[in-house]
């Protein structure tokens, strides 16, 4: 097996789950998320030589995936489906381990404006630092921090108002 093949396989194994979840939160449909991840990795294979260091791999893949998602929008702008339809699929896709509380939070996260949700996903799910997020989203650090602050603030407000989870807020 060639070196390139070995590097590629390691990338797929290490990052496919994170990328799938990130893609899901961009497009809210599992099948589309899977297509996005497929396209991302095929592009990554074609330009694998441009990835110099392993430490940069995650950001590099995320950048490719965002570009693929933007392309999808260009192609799909005339027949983009109704958003409610999207959420329907999303709710059915949850595993049995999802508690009612989690599902509620899931919906609140889905309801956040994309500009707040995306940096939150990158930080909490993918463990990226503020600087990495700023670089990936091509924003300055201050803007990223403000959006992360607002994302958490809104989620806290929604959870505190919600009867299902209000009691579970430990002090």
């Amino acid at each position, binding site marked *: *097996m060639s070196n390139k*093949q070995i590097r*590629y*396989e390691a990338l*797929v*194994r290490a990052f*496919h*789950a994170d990328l*799938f*979840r990130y893609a*899901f*939160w961009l497009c809210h449909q*599992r099948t589309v998320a*899977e297509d996005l*991840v*497929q396209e991302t*990795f*095929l592009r990554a*294979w074609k330009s694998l030589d441009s990835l110099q260091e392993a430490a940069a791999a995650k950001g590099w893949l995320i950048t490719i995936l965002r570009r693929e998602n933007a392309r999808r929008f260009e192609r799909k702008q005339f027949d983009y489906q109704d958003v409610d339809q999207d959420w329907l699929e999303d709710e059915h*896709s*949850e*595993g049995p381990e*999802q508690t009612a*509380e*989690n*599902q509620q*939070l*899931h919906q609140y*996260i889905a309801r956040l404006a994309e500009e707040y949700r995306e940096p*939150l*996903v990158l*930080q*909490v*799910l993918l463990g990226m630092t*503020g600087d990495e997020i700023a670089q990936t989203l091509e924003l300055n650090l201050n803007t*990223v*921090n*403000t959006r*992360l*602050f607002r994302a*958490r*603030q809104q*989620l*806290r407000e929604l*959870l505190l108002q919600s009867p299902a989870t209000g009691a579970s*807020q*430990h*002090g």
Partner: protein
Amino acid sequence: MDELEFRRRLLSNPTTNDEAVVQQLAADPDKQRLQHELLILDQQIKASLAVPVPADLADRLLLSQGLLQHKKIRQRRWWLGMAASLVLVAGLVQQRDHLYPWPDDIAGHALAHVYHEAKHLDDNNSLIDLTRVNLLLADLGGELRSWPGTIRYASFCYFQGTRSLHLIFNTPQGPVTVFVLPKNHGLESGSDFYDAQFHGHNMQLAKADLVLVAGKNQSLSGIATTLQQQLQFQI
């Protein structure tokens, strides 16, 4: 730093190392409670974000890359394939003088491939992992569920026009070559065979034929049993 700025910094990153934030936290139990609450919220957010990932996604990603690569190689290197075939034919003609007479049968082809592979193996000692082998095997509808030893070589080759998988397994006694042929190969498959250096064994499975070749002093029964147990074909 005023109260608002403190909240802004803590809510943008509850695990921040920001010195000013850390100092204020140390001095104020209410602020510690807020941090604690935010850390719990982050755990809940993380659990909510972690939607289930399709179980076989990684394998499917590797497979589609493999298919892409395969297509590319076929497009670009047809002339290389042609050259390799010519070399193989020349080798076959040459080796036949040393063989017991098995004209155009599986044994003759298998031995020719084994003699041919020997020239290339010394300078390539890398190991192939099972996932890679299964990517290739999938083309023939097969799967190797697990393998106790290491695998040294996996590539497609042609048995008189039949695309077959050429594998080399390392065993304690030495390397064993295994060819996986789809059922429609049209070659005569006798029983066991041998020449001055190697001996071979034909195995007929329901969905494929296997040819095992090893050095004359090596036993093939162990690996034959393992293959029977671990190699599965889709219906």
